């Protein structure tokens, strides 16, 4: 099993190197950094000097190697738009996005999973019908519209909650959190609900689908035939088997949350990385774009890796296939 994990780890690193290459290629081919830094009035001599200084006269792979070296030291370039080192920018915006996505993920799991289970076990109750209908609506209404409507209702009309920003944040070392202040918490509510809605609906339907499948399976039938109590049948033998695909999708959902956070952060002017990325794309701020991509790739590879490991822990069939019985 250790060997299998190590292999996966190496594969992940491989993927990262490839993505890094792409990000680097993109960043060198898009636009002219010399031009960007010096402006159009610079003389040729100045350009040559800058080119040498930036190492742009070296072969591609060498440049890539140096780029990797810089990345590993946290030097990700300087933003064209803001003139601040990208590393600093990312570190500043990371906590906002993480807290937002974290709370959204929590909502997704705490509401989506139980509701999905309920919908599978009580197939024909009217409450299930309502829940399923609502989930379909949740998948159909665009996230930005939900955000706008929530703002209109709760911020403009009722004035209960703020329409933008993080509220008051507390600095804990390098991290800034909005979880420790009432205004911070209030500011989190609308954005996290908005962000969570889509993935909640998805999770609900997925859990229901998987559990329905499992509950029809032979081993659940046999568990019933053995006279085991309904609760044991549904949870121990039903849900536990449905867990595997649910875990995979939950992990993928994290990726989705990352992507949709762009929209939510835009609607609520939430100072996170998604908004940063959007602004970078609009401005063609290449260092930020490529660094964000790299970060996203790291996140995805990490998530995939964790999912893989948890699969091994959860399913004995995969365990013995790898390690022998």
């Amino acid at each position, binding site marked *: 099993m250790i060997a299998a994990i190590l292999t996966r780890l190496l594969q992940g690193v491989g993927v990262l190197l490839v993505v890094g290459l792409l990000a680097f290629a993109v960043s060198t081919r898009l636009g002219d950094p010399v031009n960007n830094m010096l402006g159009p009035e610079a003389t040729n001599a100045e350009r040559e000097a800058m080119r040498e200084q930036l190492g742009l006269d070296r072969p591609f792979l060498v440049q890539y190697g140096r780029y990797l070296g810089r990345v590993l030291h946290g030097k990700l370039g300087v933003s064209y738009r803001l003139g601040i080192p990208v590393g600093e920018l990312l570190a500043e915006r990371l906590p906002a996005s993480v807290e937002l996505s974290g709370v959204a993920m929590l909502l997704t799991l705490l509401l989506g999973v139980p509701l999905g289970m309920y919908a599978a076990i009580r197939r024909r109750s009217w409450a299930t019908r309502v829940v399923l209908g609502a989930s379909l609506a949740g998948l159909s209404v665009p996230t930005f519209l939900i955000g706008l409507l929530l703002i209109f209702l709760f911020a403009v009309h009722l004035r209960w909650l703020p329409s933008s920003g993080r509220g008051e944040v507390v600095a804990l070392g390098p991290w800034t959190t909005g979880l420790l202040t009432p205004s911070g918490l209030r500011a989190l509510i609308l954005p996290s609900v908005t962000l969570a809605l889509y993935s909640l609906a998805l999770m609900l339907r997925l859990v229901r689908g998987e559990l329905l499948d499992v509950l029809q399976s032979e*081993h659940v039938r046999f*568990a019933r*035939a*053995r006279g085991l109590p309904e609760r*044991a049948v549904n949870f*121990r033998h039903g849900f536990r088997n449905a867990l595997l695909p649910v875990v995979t999708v939950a992990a993928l959902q994290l990726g989705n949350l990352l992507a949709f956070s762009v929209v939510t952060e835009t609607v609520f002017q939430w100072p996170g990385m998604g908004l940063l990325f959007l602004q970078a794309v609009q401005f063609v701020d290449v260092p930020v774009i490529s660094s964000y991509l790299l970060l996203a790739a790291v996140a995805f590879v990490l998530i995939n890796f964790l999912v893989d490991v948890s699969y091994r822990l959860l399913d*004995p*069939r995969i365990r013995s296939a790898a390690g022998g019985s």
Partner: protein
Amino acid sequence: MSVALEGLQVTLAAGGPEIPLVQDVSFHIPSGRVLGLVGESGAGKSLTAAALIGLVSPPVRISGGTLTLGERTVRLDDPRAVRPIRGSQVGFVPQDPFTSLDPLFTVGDQLVETLQAHLPLSGAKARARALQLLADVGLPSPAERAGHYPHQLSGGMRQRVAIALALAAGPPLVVADECTTALDVSTQAQIVALLGRLVEEHGTSVLLITHDLGVVAELATEVAIMYSGRIVEHAPVEELIRAPRHPYTRALLDAVPRPASAPGRALPAIPGVMPRPGEAPAGCAFHPRCPRASDRCRTERPALETVGRSALACWHPLAPEAGRD
């Protein structure tokens, strides 16, 4: 204790009139005896088995029938009465143990949970009893095997585990639904022998459902033949095989390939197909395929008449001792 089923009716209610699937099935199995229930696919054998443990779900429902276990009578059309007897009074051996055993739990765990569902046993006592059961069913090195997962066992071993699970609570009736069909011939022989031994040792009554007359000949004391939802013949096993009285039984026996039959001769198959539920012809359901059918057979359905330990539903049965017409 002896077991008796009286008047089982199973119907399909899917919009429109109710379609009968199993009609008026009754039998009596003394303690320590095996009743073979034989018939083509679709005759209603598996439904009968499912009805005995109440594992029938809409649109199929049990509309009538009582099961008597020793002193205790249970109405099968009352789901709440049937739930408690599942596993504790009626054990079930499934057809395919690979899909019936939960892949995520060890064999020992599944035994222990079944034991604890029905008997007041502490964890340690349940474990001990589980090991004993595994030894009883002839599983080699039970202590080691108990910690194995279903996919780590061979087909024959899994079937032994399934039998152990069925016997766990010591039920007076065990229903075995095609439990040898999924096995290769030599394993089949082992399981048949095992079942025979267990029946003798525990005094359990067994309802053995199969389409395999060979298995019936080896294991059963009495045989009931089902056709189109009804029992058409019921007799002690030697008598049935030696001198069947219903033309359908005769045809079934003839259709069994024998090593002695001359090569090059066509296997005698029964012409036509069994009518689907709801499409039974008037009169005797078998008459379209019966070489002895008369006008009476086409209009009047023969009732099941009991004579001693046998029963027969036919207007023109084969002569008792001759066996051939």
